């Protein structure tokens, strides 16, 4: 019986290290599918989540890993299918969607009669590219959300109308405060061509979304970001793989202590016969 206990303890502790092993040797720099149907990519600097076909948010949600807190993930910008339209058709409600991933490229195909659209997500070491390619020239309205941007292209939300149309260019720069780290972040969205319109939406003390309208068959959004001023680093979800082995060892140690010093073979069912 002792050998069974020993085997089991070794088994429990060994398995607790698997998340770290996976994170270090397998999960880096390739698309991985979740059990829900979503996909995720972890590069050295960016974490990208692309939600499952049954959810219109996070299509994709681009996060940066701060250099001073590499386990933390700070969202820079989230593309939304809920609020994006192509030729007047909503990307979430009006298209059939299929997702396919190779190790480096995520290809989401949106189809409806007469219209095929690909959203390709590709990562380099310095940025995340979201490329939209259609089978014909389309009139597109793409929305990107961030709660919240304190300034966009140097403009703040004071007295700004809703929405505020800003001068068109191929670059959208914004700043934000991250509350979890109490830090200031910078984000940039570079466009492959000048759009027909860029709008920002005031919300509370800043902006919560950027809209880009274009008429073309192709547009690339190159997103990059950084956290410039480190604040306080606290607990993050990314710390979990390092905590699990400690929990496993602690629980096993408690079990061994109770087994050794606790009351042995206390028969609780026997009391019922008295």
């Amino acid at each position: 019986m002792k050998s069974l206990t020993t085997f089991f303890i070794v088994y429990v502790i060994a398995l607790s290290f698997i998340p770290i092993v996976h994170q270090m040797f397998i999960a880096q720099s390739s698309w991985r599918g979740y059990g829900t149907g979503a996909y995720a990519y972890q590069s050295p600097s960016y974490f990208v989540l692309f939600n499952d076909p049954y959810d219109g948010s996070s299509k994709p949600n681009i996060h940066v890993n701060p250099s001073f807190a590499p386990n933390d993930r700070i969202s820079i910008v989230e593309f939304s299918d809920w609020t994006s339209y192509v030729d007047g058709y909503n990307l979430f409600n009006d298209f059939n969607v299929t997702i396919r991933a190779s190790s480096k490229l995520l290809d989401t195909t949106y189809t409806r009669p007469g219209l095929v659209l690909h959203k390709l997500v590709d990562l380099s070491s310095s940025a995340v590219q979201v490329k939209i390619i259609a089978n014909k020239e389309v009139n597109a309205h793409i929305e990107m959300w961030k709660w919240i941007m304190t300034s966009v292209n140097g403009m703040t939300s004071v007295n700004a109308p809703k929405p505020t149309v800003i001068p068109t260019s191929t670059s959208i720069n914004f700043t934000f405060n991250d509350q979890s780290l109490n830090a200031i972040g910078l984000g940039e969205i570079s466009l492959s061509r000048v759009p027909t319109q860029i709008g920002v939406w005031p919300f509370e003390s800043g902006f919560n979304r950027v809209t880009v309208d274009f008429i073309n068959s192709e547009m690339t959004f190159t997103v990059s970001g950084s956290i410039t001023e480190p604040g306080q680093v606290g607990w993050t979800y990314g710390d979990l793989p390092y905590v699990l082995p400690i929990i496993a060892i602690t629980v096993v140690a408690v079990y061994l202590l109770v087994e050794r010093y606790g009351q042995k073979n206390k028969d609780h069912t026997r009391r019922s016969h008295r």
Partner: protein
Amino acid sequence: MDKRIKITLAALIVRLVIAPFFMHAGDLGTIYESSAIALNGGNLYNYVYQQTLQMQSATGLPVFFEGYAYHPLLIYFFVPFYWIYTLIAGPSSVIIGGHFPNLPVLVYPWALIAIFMMKVPIILADVAVVYVLSGFDLKKAEIYAFCPYIIFISVVWGMFDAIVAIFLLLSYITFSKTSYTLSGLTYGLSLTKLYTVVLFPLYVIRLWGKWKELGQFLLGFSITLIPVLYYLIVSPVAFLNVIVGFQGSRVMGGVNLYNFVWIIPDVRFDLLLSMIPSILLVISVAIIVLRYGRRLPLVEAILAVMLVSFVFGKVLNEQFLVSIFPLILLCRECDYRLWVAPFAFIFLRSPFYYFAIPILWASPYFYDLYLQADTLWMHLQTAGYLMIPMYAVGIAFSMLLLWNLIQVLKVSRPVGAENTRSRSLSRAVRIRRK
């Protein structure tokens, strides 16, 4: 009034009072939806298989639709009560949607009646367990009747492991009384949830060499396979995909040591990793059956196999312990307080208010409170705070199961001293005669 009747009635009343107002929307919704499909003559496995194909086509991943993935017999326990419900309320759907992660739409007041009716078979199974146990020992029957964990699983959650429990208990009793045909039949009925399949080799090995008795057992068992045979002929691909494909390729997890898997967002890797417990399960069950199958008294042998399958098996949901809880109560070596771990785990995996949806959905004010509470819960979940106690409770429960397994194995007798009549049953009968 006879004390036995009193306990049984008290167990019944407690359950009837709670039943209409709580549910696990995903699980009870599945049974409700499946009962409607079955009553209308639909093929449940085709429906689930089509959903799975659609999901796999959309995502490009080996993901499965989590619908009706049980023995075909199960739905026949629920369909009569669903039919009675439709006589009262009509055929319109009153629990709409609710498959995780969606929340259901409930149509009042009919939804409460539907929830109640879908729980009647579970309540009857629970009450039957109490009645049968009270024939052995009133105190044990009381423990089962009023155990918060059992009540929660059956009438708050609406999970039907009590049906497995009653048939497993009856299978044990009838086997001990050498009624092998009945034992095979009731064992087959316990397979309404497939995790008791690990007991099949145990029953066979205990009757090995007694060919007539083995034949009787297999005859009883084979009756329960008739619906399986039907679906294998009518829709073999869908049936095998749902039963073998889904159950066989589920990602590990539950109240066990495998919860670390939830922080590895890589379904292909998770599935590959889930083969480790599957292999260990086969090896460990084979060892227990071959080495201890005939040397342990029957109740201990059944528990040894079930406990080892819980310890090493890849999926151990919160409710699985209900199935062997009556046998744990009949076994002197086991500590029935095991239930505390899966009971605690329920509230770490699902927020307590989720089970109160039938109450909270009745008012926009409560609905708003639900959404506010859920925002906080989601924050705790996405930050990973809940993962730590979940993982700890999972490992602790596995260790406790292991401890109980070791206690059970300690009572094994030398080879040649086998006795098919359970020591626990004999003891229980002696107590009753006193």
